[in-house]
Structures are given as structure tokens and as C-alpha cells.
């Protein structure tokens, strides 16, 4: 019974990880590098929402939307100002630069918010009991949003012009450009989309968890784990990978101390990279 409860919690964790990772993988796929600062964007959105909600007194939905939009614009701004000029230096330099960006964003959040634990002003969650397993309405929202986001992202990428352009660019930037895809517009759309998704994940984090300023760093470890298990740059395998890691982490608590949760994620990373670097995705990730 307890095992079943952990399984359900694991699915919720997994859904959150899907939301948090999908933007990261999108960046990896289109821009071609690992954006370590992606997790800090979760923090930007979570704390913007928290500030508007508690200090500004805004209703949670509006505060959340504002937080997401602000995060999307911030992500676009950083992409244009920091990453675009050095794109020709290759993924390693971009990766190392993104560590610097993570420092800057993390430092700003720290300076503005300070230490301590924050919660949104949204009241306590209602707990439902189904066959002895507890789940809260907030957790259900996370699951529903992860499902809705995955579905709409799939539709966006396969049906709309911008979505097709993003996929074309991720498959072959030079060919896409020569076939009339506006590379700059598509790149900006990607930054907005990826950062907006990070924003959504950040809001979810604020809803289901308590916030402290070091939260983003803990997320990047798990995001990396999911992205690697999925195969860097794959989008839809992120769904399986997110669920797998979420469930593995939470169910492991049944046998081993809870302190080892992050370790599970990282053991997965090492095993995957050493034995199957292309991850769950069948083909190797495109560059």
C-alpha cells in the first residue's frame, strides 16, 4: 500500500520533471548546447509568481501567467544578448558560459529574495483518497498540465508553421536556412517557448513545494538526469524518461533513506552515459 502511494507520488514528480525538462531539451535540440541556466529560469518564474501573489495580492492564476510571460521574455533576452554572439564557439563554450549565467540569475534571486522558506498564498491543498492512496488537487493539476503541455507541444511542432520551422532547424540548420526558414525568428521563438515552459514548471514548483533560493540548483541535477536518459535533444522520449526517473526516485524511498533520492537520478545518468549514451531515443540525438 505504501509502495503504491510512493508510486503515485513518483508519477507526480515525473510529470513535474517532464515540464521542467522539455524546455531544456528543446534548447539543446535547436540551439545545440546544454543550458545549465535553464533551471534558474524555474526560479525566476517561481519567485516572480510568489512576489506578485503574496506582496502584490494578485490572484494566483494571473500572477502565474505574469510570471511565465516574464520568464519567457527573460529567457529570450539572455539568449539574444549572451548566447547568440558566441554561438560559433561551439557547445562546450556555450555550456561553460551558461554556468556563468546560472550564477548571475541565482545571485540576483538571492539578493532580492533572501534566505528562508516561502509559500504561495493559495491555501492548503485538498486531499483525495482513492483506494487508500492520497493525492492532492495541486498534484492533480501538475499531472493534468504536464499532459496538456505535451499534447499541445506535439500539435504545435507538427501542425504550425513555426513549429515545423523549429523542427527543420533542429534537424539541419543549414538546409533549413536555404529552404527559406527564417533562422533568427525561429531561434527567438525557441527561446520564448523553452523559457516559457521553464516558467510553467517554475509555477508548478511553487504550487506543490515550498520555495527556497537554492531550489533551482537541485532541479538542474534532475533535469540533466531526465534529459540524458531521454537522449540529449529528444523531445518526446522526455515523457517516458521523466516518469521513469520520477518513479525511480520516489519508489526508492521505500527501501533506502530519502536522502539518497538525488543519488538515484545520478546513478541513472552514469549508467545511461556509460552503457547507452544515446539514451532511450532510438536514433542518436541530432546536433
Amino acid at each position: 500500500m505504501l509502495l503504491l502511494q510512493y508510486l503515485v507520488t513518483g508519477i507526480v514528480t515525473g510529470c513535474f520533471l517532464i515540464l521542467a525538462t522539455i524546455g531544456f531539451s528543446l534548447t539543446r535540440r535547436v540551439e545545440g548546447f546544454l543550458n545549465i541556466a535553464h533551471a534558474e529560469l524555474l526560479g525566476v518564474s517561481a519567485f516572480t509568481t510568489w512576489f506578485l501573489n503574496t506582496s502584490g495580492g494578485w490572484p494566483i492564476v494571473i500572477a502565474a501567467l505574469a510570471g511565465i510571460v516574464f520568464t519567457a521574455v527573460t529567457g529570450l533576452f539572455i539568449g539574444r544578448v549572451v548566447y547568440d554572439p558566441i554561438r560559433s564557439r561551439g557547445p562546450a563554450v556555450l555550456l561553460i558560459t551558461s554556468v556563468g549565467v546560472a550564477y548571475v540569475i541565482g545571485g540576483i534571486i538571492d539578493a532580492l529574495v533572501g534566505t528562508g522558506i516561502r509559500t504561495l498564498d493559495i491555501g492548503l491543498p485538498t486531499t483525495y483518497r482513492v483506494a487508500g492512496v492520497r493525492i492532492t488537487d495541486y498534484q492533480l493539476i501538475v499531472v493534468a498540465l504536464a499532459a496538456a503541455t505535451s499534447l499541445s507541444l506535439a500539435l504545435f511542432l507538427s501542425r504550425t508553421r513555426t513549429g515545423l520551422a523549429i523542427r527543420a532547424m533542429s534537424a539541419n540548420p543549414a538546409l533549413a536556412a536555404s529552404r527559406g526558414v527564417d533562422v533568427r525568428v525561429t531561434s527567438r521563438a525557441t527561446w520564448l517557448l523553452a523559457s516559457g515552459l521553464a516558467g510553467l514548471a517554475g509555477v508548478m514548483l511553487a504550487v506543490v513545494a515550498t520555495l527556497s533560493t537554492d531550489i533551482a540548483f537541485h532541479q538542474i541535477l534532475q533535469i540533466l538526469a531526465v534529459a540524458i536518459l531521454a537522449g540529449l535533444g529528444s523531445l518526446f522520449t522526455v515523457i517516458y524518461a521523466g516518469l521513469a526517473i520520477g518513479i525511480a526516485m520516489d519508489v526508492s524511498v521505500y527501501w533506502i533513506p530519502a536522502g539518497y533520492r538525488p543519488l538515484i537520478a545520478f546513478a541513472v545518468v552514469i549508467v545511461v552515459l556509460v552503457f547507452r549514451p544515446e539514451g532511450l531515443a532510438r536514433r542518436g540525438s541530432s546536433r
Partner: protein
Amino acid sequence: MIVQLLLSVITYGSLFAVITLALNLQYARGGMINFGIVAYLAAGAYAYAIVTQEPPSGLDQYLFGFDGPWWAGMIAAALAALLFALVTGWPTLRLRGEYLALTTFAFAEVFHSLLLNERRIGNGSVGLSNVERPVPEVAGIAIDESGFFAVAALALMLVTLLVFHRLLASPYGRVLDAIRDDELAASTVGKRVGRLRLQVFLISAVPVGLAGALYAMITTLASPSLFTAEVTFFVWIALILGGERTILGAVLGTFGLVLFEELSRAVPFESVRAAQVAASVQHVLTGLLFIALLRWRPGGGPKGDRS
């Protein structure tokens, strides 16, 4: 005050410069991105503490304490770092670029998590305090401790620097350059790439392990909070600051960064909050510096010195 500042800059500057030199060997010469180098330092510090500390008593939760002399601790520290490099380096030989960066990062995080959660190694999050250290005396007269350890750290750095310099100026260094620039070409002329890459890992681990032992002696502490990913990134920033591929740059970059940290720590603050904001601002400045350096000074550091 000034003397104290100078001493701690020399001490910590030298210690971290050892790590920067190791990173320089791995990245600038070997072409390998190691995002988990802090683990070598932690392995060294813990090995030293475990070998020299007394057997557990009272509230202690650790299992092993051998009460050994300090030199045995130093040897254990070097061996522990070597072992960690071997265990993590061997399975990752096939990996390149960002994949290697992530795996090394993951190994370091797993190790950190073990130290934090497995109380039988070193009391978990509390860590091992009152780490033994040799009492410095010259001809029976005790001398100033902080001065002694500053000299010890400086000596370790200079030895590391000399050894690495000799190594890289030799044909061996040119083989490493060849592998970094074109792996396929290097293996075509018969250089065993995997073996050389593992050697680079092992060679660079030893001085970092020794630095870990010194670090434990100086702070008399080995606790997980000292060995977070922040240390890794700090050293990376120092390396970029000093410029890749120059030994002198790596050392100067580290000293510059440590001086900056020590100076900003020396500023008195009215309140806890002010100190905290200052720490955050320091983070932001470090990050901005990092971004700017990578963008505008790809070579970085003093030009010309390619060893």
C-alpha cells in the same frame, strides 16, 4: 590584518591553484571537460581525516579511525584521489565533450551525496572536525601555524607547477596536444588515445588529493558542505580568468579570484542581511565576469606562454 589577509590569500590561492593546474592539464591540454573535480579534493580530505583521526568514540558515527601519523594521511589522500580518478575515469574514456562534463559532474554529485548520507564514512552532514595536523616546529621551537601552512600550500603548488611544466614541455605534452587537436590523426600514428586520457586523469588527481589533505589540515574540518559543486565552478572561473593553456595564467587567475573573495569577505557589514546581499552580489559579479571573459578573451591570460 594585512598579514593575515596575505597569508590566507597565499594559503587558499595555492591550494586552489593546484586544482586549477589539474584542470588546465585536463581541459586545455587534454581537451576533457571535468565538472566534478571537487570530488578529488573531497576524496583527499576525507582519506586524510580518516587515516589520522582517533577511533570513533561517544557520539561519533564514523566506523574507521586509524590514528595514523600525518604523512600516512597524506599518502592515503593521494591514493584516494588516484583511486577515484581511476574508478570514474576508466568507464568514461569513450565519452567526449558535454557528455564527459555531465558524467564527471554526476560522479562528483553521487560522491557528495554518499558523504552526506552515509554517516559511517564521516559523520554525514556534520563531517569530521578537529582533524589532526602536524605541529610545526623547527629544532624544537614551535613556529607560527598559519605561516607554516601557507608555506606548505605554496610548496605543494610550486612542485605541482614544476612537474606539470616539465611534463607538458616534453614529447608527452605534444602527444596530448595532438590528441586534443585531432584524435583520429593521433591514433592513426599509433598513439593510444584512451590510455593517454586515463593517464591525464590519474596524473592530475594526485596533487588535488594532496591539496585536499592540506585543506583538511588547515580548516581542521572535512565536511560535505566544503566540497560542493561551487568549488568546481570556482576553479573553472579561475581557469578561464587566467586563460587556457598557460600554467602561469592558471595560477594568477586563481590568486586573483581568491584575493577578490578574501577582500570582499574582509568588508564589515552592519547586518546579516547586508552581508547576505553582498555575497549574492559577489555571485552576480563572478558570473558576469565569467560570461564576459569567455566572450571577449578566448585566449585569456598572458599571451605567448604555451606551456
